[in-house]
């Protein structure tokens, strides 16, 4: 009976939501805030990618919050799974896989950092790059070649990266601006790597933090619990 009620209500919900969305104007957004952001993106942040400008400039606080959420999730995950020494888990990988891993690791590292650092110019940025960095560090675990990322190191990286993000924000405060204000926006030309002031620096912090966070989470997931449920 509750299942039936749930299905009934769900059908009602879907129908009402759909009919509600039909009254929304698709394709012609009011862009009350959006247009201004587009107009100011370059002048305000120096980033060619308006999405990056929004993420790190206009709505930098959201990004900080998001990093915090990842940090919270990783911390909570660590709290739940506990801190256990990794045992030997999984069968050892074959030589080819091990070799491939060694080859792939620097490659992924490079790609990851590239994506992170070009976030203000092209699609991509700290998150996407961070994911790749995490994968790179996590690769040895998958391949079963090693212990994977060092936990202590990860903690230091994630802690410092987050702090750096905030400190860059506070730096603006101390130099007379407001929290999270982009600095040194006018240095460097548009479309160049070294442009957009502190933005790439922020993205670097984001990328490192996301990478460390996710790698930690993945490692926890892979290791803790000991495999034997």
């Amino acid at each position, binding site marked *: 009976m*509750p299942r039936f009620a749930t299905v009934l*209500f769900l059908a009602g919900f879907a129908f009402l939501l759909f009919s*509600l969305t039909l009254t929304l104007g698709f394709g012609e957004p009011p862009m009350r805030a959006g247009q201004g952001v587009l107009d100011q993106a370059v002048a305000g942040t120096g980033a060619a990618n308006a999405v990056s400008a929004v993420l790190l400039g206009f709505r930098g606080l959201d990004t900080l919050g998001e990093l915090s959420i990842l940090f919270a999730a990783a911390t909570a995950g660590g709290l739940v799974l506990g801190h256990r020494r990794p045992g030997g888990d999984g069968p050892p990988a074959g030589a080819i896989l091990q070799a491939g891993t060694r080859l792939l690791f620097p490659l992924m590292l490079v790609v990851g950092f590239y994506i992170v650092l070009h976030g203000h110019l092209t699609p991509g940025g700290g998150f996407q790059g961070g994911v790749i960095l995490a994968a790179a560090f996590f690769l040895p675990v998958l391949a079963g070649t090693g212990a994977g990322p060092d936990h202590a190191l990860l903690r230091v990286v994630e802690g410092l990266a987050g702090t750096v993000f905030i400190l860059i924000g506070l730096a603006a405060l101390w130099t007379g601006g407001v929290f999270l204000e982009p600095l040194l926006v006018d240095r460097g030309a548009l479309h160049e790597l070294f442009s957009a002031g502190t933005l790439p620096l922020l993205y670097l912090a984001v990328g490192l933090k996301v990478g460390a966070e996710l790698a930690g989470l993945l490692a926890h997931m892979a290791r803790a619990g000991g495999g034997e449920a």
Partner: protein
Amino acid sequence: MTHLDLLLLVALINLPVAWWLAGGATRRRLLALPYGLMLGMLLYMDPGATWDSGLSWVFLGQSLSWRLDGLGWFFALPTIGAALAAAAYSSGEWGEDFAGAGGSMGWLQLALAANVFAMLVLLAAGDLLTLFIGWELVSWAGLPLMVLAGGAAVGAGIRYITYAMGGGMAVLLGVVLVYVWTGSLVPADFMAVLPTLASWQVGLLVALFFGGFGVKMALLPFHLWQAPAYGLSVGPAAAFLGAISSRMGLFAMALVLVKFITLERLVDLTVIPGLLDSRDVLAWVAAFTIILPTYTALKQNDARLLLAWHGIGQGGYMVLGLVMGDAMGSAGGLLHVFNYATNQAVLLLAVFAVMHRTGTADLNRMGGLIVRMPLSFLALLIGIIGLAGLPPMNGFVSKWLVYRSLVLEGEPLLFLAAIIGTLGTILSVYKLIHNIFLGQLRVEHEDIREAPWSMTGPMLVLCAVIVVTGTMPGLVLGVVADAQQAIGLAVPDYHLGGVTSPAGGLDMLWLNGVIMAGFAVGAVLFYGFGGRTKRVHQLDNYAGGHFLTADVRYQYSDNFYPGLMHHIGGWYRGSFQWLEGALISVVDLLATALRGFYHQAQPAAWVLFTITLGFAWAVLP
């Protein structure tokens, strides 16, 4: 620092002082002192005047102020008096035994002091908000006094506070409604607006206030809590509670219903056209409150509970007299507060004195104590005569005034109800005195001694008060007249011995003189002309020609008044108990259902249900 402030301050300082005094055996002897001081201060203040407090401030847009007028003064007198008696009672041997048995004298005295303070705050209320503050303080202050005894008293206390808060919430709603409808809680302001309110509004206010205050008065159907809550408490606490605590309800009723809303307005509110107005409803509630609890008292086998049940019934007389509203009726109702307080205090103190000595309050396990505890017997005798409303004690005066008013106002049915109640009172108090003091002494009570002076002293002083105010009711009627004036009622034509009225007055000086003369003649006849008495040992007696040995006890208390009980037994079906139980069951059922809600398999479904209903509500016109 006005006089009232000083009085309140002393009452407040008494809290730590009482706590400290209760701490040591020698210090305890001084426990009554603060109350004596307060009584002196009160007597110094003229009841005919209005005593303002210097304290007053504006908070939440409300002005809070305190002032003591004739009505408050009149209620303050028995309050402090009862506390004085209770403190004195507990200051000697009783207190030592209580402390020795693991009881906390400190808490007892602190709670007593807190009660007095709270009651004074209530009695000095200058507006509806301070009235409610005082009301709540009084309600809560009563709780520790009740639960001190532990055990079953805790259950009774929790039941009390649940009832009391129900009443308190009704009062709060009434206060809020007065504020919203009239824009003020200051009497002078809202009394100007009250006459313009619609009938339903006034009717609701009357219902809320009468119901709310009625809970404290234990008016039907809210009476179940009182007897165990008062009766099961420890001695001095029970005496104090029984004497005055629930009368705070009458004070508030007199203030709000009689003074603020006025009885004329009550008469205007028709409940059944041509037959019943709201004042009649109030009167009939009072009448039933007289009858039912009184006959419940008749059935009790615990002396404390018997008296406590009477307390409920006697409250009915007060309300009945008050809502009559004429000079005699209201004077009788208010006077009964004082008289009943003295009676009940004496009775409970005596019963607890007996209990102190015998260790039981069970009426079926005592008897014949008259020779062991003559002073307690005397106190109890005077108390029950007063409680039953017989001359020459003061209870007669107030009841006579109420009867007289009922007759004069043309309420024969109510008069009949009051008489029936008095009949039940007489029957049950006879049971009380008989089962405790008359009949055969039980073997285990062979070595009982009279209670110590610290306990009999307060009893005897109160007895003196009963006799004196019974003979010279004018002493109290003067104060009653001030109280009546304070709430805008007519004042009877009183003198030292009673009242005079065209329809027939009462002069207790004369009446008591005749009674005393009658007794004197009887005594002379008895002792002078052949009155033959022979003193025998209590265990050596005959009954109906049958010799009773010590093991066959002369006791017929187990089945007291069998004929009467046979006839009225059908009425004791406990329908109010059933009502209370049903209410609890309903709440229980709802609560169980709600617990079910919080124990469901998939709580997240409610997010979906809610938002879907919300969407439907928003989208569908």
